[in-house]
């Protein structure tokens, strides 16, 4: 009964005209004998059978009429009958504004859905008897049998199609990378599933007291811009759905105007004559649908809307966590990189960190400079395997281990050996690569150890560029690894270039080609200022497509 009450509140005052041509012509001939029988048995001039299509729009399947000539009038009549019939299982008497009276019986299928209506129409002087009602009720049973027989065939095909679409929707949702991506990938499919011409998603922004809207691509651009946000109140279907937690429907322009006066013009501008809004399960978002024609929200349509909303809601949750993960990882990574590096006397330090391409999660590149004594500084640069939150966290742990080790332990070899132990114990740190460099400001003496990292380069003041040896196992591959220490020194005007593989690695080419490109770029650079030289070299190499890039340049 509660359902019926809810439905009744949606019947607009006056008749809504629904003109929608089904792509599939209903089997008129199936209902013709029933309609003729009804006219004879009940002695009426007009009989009709309507059947709701999948979207709940009634289609007049059969109208046997001696007196109603005007197609608009019978369209309006059949729709009104269908709407009223939705509200009751009983045989209804419906007076009509044009001087007619209708006797109507809703057609309810085995699962209890109203699938259509069987009605007879006579002059308003007609008095309907109990016998008339029984006759119509009996005849309607034949109509239902016919509809169910047809549906068994027709709906099986439709269901196959819907199942395929639902599958497509689920697939698209799984692949979506963020909320906007969810809308781009799913808006159209979601709309098609419920026959809607337009779909959108509203995400609750509690702090701003607003709904952030994500429209599907079918909305014209100017409207798209007009509706970036909505106030979080009950003046819109989306706001009302979120705040009440129940689905909101408005099946006609008149109903939209009555229920949502402030949004009626927008709906009209968008060409929408029916709207629905479904809250997601977690209640932090709502899915909106718009139709370019009036709609009767039948039970099957409501179920389908709820299913689509549920699916998209799950997709949104997933997308939000992806977005959140990315933001957190990015923030975390930047916060884990040192804000201020230790100042090395007599050395200018230039650094660069560039995140990889948009939509990819951040990687695990890191660098730092730690004072190990009055005349000794240790520089570290490294790359943690993998991307995303886990890589950012691992990178932070590794960098902090590096800081702690440098301040406590003497030799470079011991520092790296301890990082080896650390990397074995910390899941995700294994196979990290790094270069550790120890520098003595007074003499310019430089010692380096590489753990599977890109070879450092030294540019001499005279312009020549030396590529230091590479190799050395990555961190975390067993203990007691013999690591060789490279020794050189920085003269005045020399610079040391440490970097991660994103600077040189390009898909489809040998790593040596990339290294040579970098070596030449450093060689060509005329800048003596470290920061300017780094910028010049970085720009001359071109932006890497995928990977993160970290560079640190020490210029004496």
């Amino acid at each position: 009964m509660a359902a019926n009450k809810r439905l009744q509140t949606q019947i607009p005052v006056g008749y809504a005209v629904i003109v929608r041509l089904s792509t599939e012509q209903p089997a008129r001939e199936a209902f013709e004998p029933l309609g003729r029988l009804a006219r004879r048995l009940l002695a009426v001039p007009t009989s009709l059978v309507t059947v709701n299509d999948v979207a709940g729009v009634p289609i007049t399947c059969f109208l046997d009429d001696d007196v109603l000539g005007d197609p608009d009038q019978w369209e309006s009549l059949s729709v009104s009958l269908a709407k009223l019939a939705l509200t009751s299982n009983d045989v209804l008497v419906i007076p009509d504004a044009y001087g007619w009276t209708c006797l109507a019986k809703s057609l309810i299928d085995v699962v209890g859905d109203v699938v259509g209506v069987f009605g007879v129409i006579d002059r308003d002087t007609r008095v309907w008897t109990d016998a008339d009602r029984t006759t119509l009720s009996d005849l309607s049973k034949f109509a239902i049998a016919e509809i169910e027989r047809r549906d068994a065939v027709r709906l099986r095909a439709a269901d196959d199609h819907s199942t395929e679409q639902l599958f497509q929707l689920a697939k698209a949702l799984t692949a979506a990378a963020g909320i906007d991506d969810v809308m781009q990938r799913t808006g159209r499919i979601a709309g098609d599933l419920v026959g809607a011409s337009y779909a959108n998603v509203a995400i609750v922004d509690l702090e701003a007291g607003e709904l952030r809207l994500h429209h599907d691509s079918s909305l014209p651009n100017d409207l798209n811009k007009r509706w970036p946000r909505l106030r979080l109140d009950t003046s819109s279907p989306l706001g009302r759905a979120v705040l009440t937690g129940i689905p909101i429907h408005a099946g006609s322009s008149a109903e939209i105007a009555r229920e949502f006066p402030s949004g009626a013009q927008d709906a009209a501008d968008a060409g929408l004559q029916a709207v629905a809004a479904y809250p997601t399960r977690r209640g932090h978002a709502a899915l909106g649908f718009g139709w370019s024609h009036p709609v009767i929200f039948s039970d099957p349509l409501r179920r389908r809307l709820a299913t689509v909303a549920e699916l998209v809601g799950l997709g949104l949750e997933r997308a939000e966590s992806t977005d959140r993960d990315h933001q957190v990882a990015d923030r975390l990574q930047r916060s884990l990189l040192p804000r201020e590096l230790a100042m090395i006397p007599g050395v200018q330090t230039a650094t660069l960190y560039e995140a990889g391409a948009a939509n990819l999660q951040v990687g695990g590149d890191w660098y730092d400079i730690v004072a190990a004594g009055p005349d000794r500084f240790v520089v570290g640069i490294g790359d943690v395997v993998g991307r995303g939150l886990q890589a950012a966290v691992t990178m932070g742990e590794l960098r902090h281990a590096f800081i702690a080790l440098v301040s406590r332990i003497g030799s470079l070899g011991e520092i790296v050996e301890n990082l080896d132990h650390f990397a074995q114990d910390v899941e995700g740190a294994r196979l990290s690569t790094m270069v550790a460099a120890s520098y003595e400001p007074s003499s310019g003496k430089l010692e380096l150890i590489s753990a599977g990292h890109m070879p450092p380069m030294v540019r001499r003041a005279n312009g020549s560029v030396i590529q230091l040896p590479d190799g050395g196992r990555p961190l975390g591959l067993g203990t007691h690894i013999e690591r060789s220490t490279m020794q050189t020194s920085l003269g005045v005007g020399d610079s040391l270039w440490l970097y991660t593989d994103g600077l040189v690695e390009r898909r489809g080419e040998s790593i040596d080609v990339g290294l040579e490109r970098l070596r030449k770029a450093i060689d060509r650079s005329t800048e003596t200022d470290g920061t300017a030289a780094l910028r010049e070299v970085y720009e001359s190499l071109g932006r890497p497509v995928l990977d993160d890039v970290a560079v640190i340049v020490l210029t004496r």
Partner: protein
Amino acid sequence: MVDDSVVIVTDQAPPLLKIEVIDGGLRLTGEIDASTIDSLSRYLNPLPGAAGDIAIDLNNVGFIDSSGLRSLIDAHQRAAGLGRRVIMTEPSSVVRRLFEISGLSDYLYFA
């Protein structure tokens, strides 16, 4: 002797990594990176075959990124735990250099 052949087709064409199960191991063609690593991992975990060395033919592999290296090392270590060896056969010069620069040429087995 090829007893099975599987082509991993991703969204992009051509296939980024072709994995063929050959006698005593795998033959790989393409690129081993984050986008293909899951496919490769399915063939390396559990390790192919019941006993003996596992050959991974890298002759037609043009690129291995750090996650690809990690997957090969995982296989290497799991094999070592079972008294077996994973042997990288015929790596292209590009790939050999990648192993070198990554400090893995004296860690993994090559043939």
